[in-house]
C-alpha cells in the first residue's frame, strides 16, 4: 500500500531524484571512522547538527511551559524543573546541549581550519559556517536570560554593557537589545522572541545553505 501511495505521489511530483541524490551519494574512505579511526574528527559537523536537532526539539517542549514575563518566567522554570514529568530532563538537555553544541561546533571549525577545507572552491561554505557560529553564540546569549534568575539577569546586564561600549553604534545596539534603557520586562520578551523565532529562522536558512553547498561541492579530498 505504501508503495502504491509512493508511486502515486512520485508520478505527479517526481520526488525520487531528490532523495536518491541524498541517499546514494558516496562518502569517501578518508572521512569514514569505520576505516580510519582518526576520521572521527569528520563527525563533528554531523554531531553539531545532531545536537542542534536536540536543541530544537527540547526547546519546543520547553515553550509549552515557559512564560516570558518577569513575574512568571522564573516560577515557570521552577515549575518545569520540579513539577512537570521529565521537565528536569528536557530542561537539562536544553541547558547542557547549549554548551555541547558550542563545543562540537568549535571542534568542527578547528577540523575544517586545520585540514584547510575552507580553501577554494569552498570559501562560501566557510563564511556561512562562521555565520552559523555567530548565530549560535547569539542563541546562547539570548537563551541565558530566559530563566530570569540573578545569574541570567547580571550576565545579560554585563553583556549589554559590553555591547554598549562598541564605538559609535554601541548606544543604539544596547537600546535596541534592551528595548529601553534598563534590562527589564521588554528585554525579556525581546530576548525570548529573538531566541525562539528570529535566530532559529536565520539558523535554519543558514543550515540549508551549508548543507546545499556541501552536497553540491562534495567533501574535501584527503590531505
Amino acid at each position, binding site marked *: 500500500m505504501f508503495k502504491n501511495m509512493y508511486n502515486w505521489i512520485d508520478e505527479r511530483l517526481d520526488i525520487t531524484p531528490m532523495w536518491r541524490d541524498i541517499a546514494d551519494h*558516496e*562518502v569517501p574512505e578518508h572521512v569514514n571512522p569505520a576505516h580510519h579511526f582518526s576520521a572521527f574528527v569528520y563527525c563533528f559537523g554531523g554531531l553539531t547538527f545532531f545536537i542542534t536537532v536536540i536543541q530544537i526539539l527540547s526547546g519546543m517542549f520547553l515553550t509549552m511551559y515557559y512564560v516570558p514575563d518577569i513575574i512568571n518566567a522564573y516560577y515557570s522554570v521552577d515549575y518545569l524543573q520540579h513539577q512537570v514529568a521529565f521537565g528536569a530532563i528536557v530542561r537539562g538537555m536544553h541547558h547542557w546541549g547549549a554548551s555541547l553544541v558550542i563545543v562540537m561546533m568549535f571542534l568542527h571549525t578547528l577540523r575544517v581550519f586545520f585540514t584547510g577545507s575552507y580553501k577554494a572552491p569552498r570559501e562560501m561554505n566557510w563564511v556561512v559556517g562562521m555565520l552559523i557560529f555567530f548565530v549560535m553564540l547569539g542563541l546562547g546569549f539570548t537563551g541565558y536570560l530566559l530563566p530570569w534568575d540573578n545569574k541570567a539577569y547580571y550576565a545579560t546586564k554585563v553583556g549589554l554593557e559590553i555591547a554598549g561600549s562598541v564605538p559609535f553604534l554601541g548606544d543604539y545596539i544596547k537600546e535596541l537589545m534592551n528595548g529601553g534603557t534598563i534590562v527589564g520586562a521588554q528585554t525579556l520578551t525581546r530576548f525570548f522572541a529573538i531566541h525562539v523565532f528570529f535566530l532559529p529562522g536565520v539558523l535554519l536558512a543558514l543550515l540549508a545553505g551549508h548543507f546545499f553547498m556541501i552536497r553540491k561541492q562534495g567533501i574535501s579530498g584527503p590531505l
Partner: protein
Amino acid sequence: MAHKHDPNEKIVFIGDSRVRKKDHSNVVPPDYTAFPGKSEAFIPNFLLKEWMVGVVVLVGFLTLVIAEPAPLGYPADPLNSAFIPMPDWYFLFLYQLLKYPYASGDYIVLGILGLSGLPFISLLLAPFLDTGKERRFYRRPIASSLMLVSLVAVAYLTWVSWNHYEHELEINGQIPEHIEREIKAREAIEKGLPRPVPGREKIAAMVAADDPAFTETMTKAQCIACHGAELEGANGPTLRGIGDVLSKEELVETITNGKANGNMPAFKDNLSTEEIDKIATWLSKQKAEAK
C-alpha cells in the same frame, strides 16, 4: 522502485507538458574515483556508522543531563548589589579580555574593534586571507600559528576569568545561588517541609509580637530598616521563622559580628551583650510551627 516505464520505450506521451518524463539515468551516484579507497553510499551505510558515533555522544550527554540537573538560582533582583556577574563559560574569554586596562576605559575602541572584532572578522574571511593552494596546516605556518596563538589566548583568558570568579566567591563568602538553593531545598525536604520556592515562601506569623525585645530593643537597633517593619524582609532577609533556621547561639554570633559578606553589619558596638541576648532569645522563638 518507481521504474514503471520500459527503458527502451522511444516515445512517451504525457498529457500535460509541464510534467517531465521521468529520467532516472542522472541519479547515478557521483563518481568518487578521484578519492581512491572504499567509498560507500551515504544512506544507509555511512549514516549508520556516523549514528554509532552519535549514540556514544548521546549516552554521554544523557548521563550528564541525569547526573547534573540544570542550574537555577534565585529570582532576578535588580537591587542585589552583592551578586557577582558571570556570563556563560564560552563568553568568559571576551569578558576577561575587556577587563584589562589596555582593552577597556580609554582603550575600549582597541579592545572591541582591535582585539575582539579583528580576529573574528579575520576568522570569518579566512578563505580570502589564506588563499594559497596548500591545505596541510604545517605548510601554512602563518594561518596555523595565528590560530594556535588565538586558541592558547582564549583558553588562558577563560581560565583566568573562572579563577577570578572562584576567588571573588571565596572572599565574599558566597556560594553560587543555584547550589545554595539546592542545599536549602534538600534541607527542607529532609525536615519533611515542602520544597521552598524562592520568593514564594509562606511567611510565618510573628511569635510574641508585643515583647519589648521587639517593640523596644530591635526598633532602637534599626533592625527593621533592613528586615522590614514586620520583619517580613526588605533589603535583608525575613526574620519570621528564623528560629527554625538558626539557634540562639548562632543568632547572637550573627548580631554581634555581622555576616562575612558584609550585608549584615556587626552590632557589637551599638548594643550591649544583654540587649543582643534579649533579641537573640526572642528571635530564636520565631518558629513557624509555634503559633
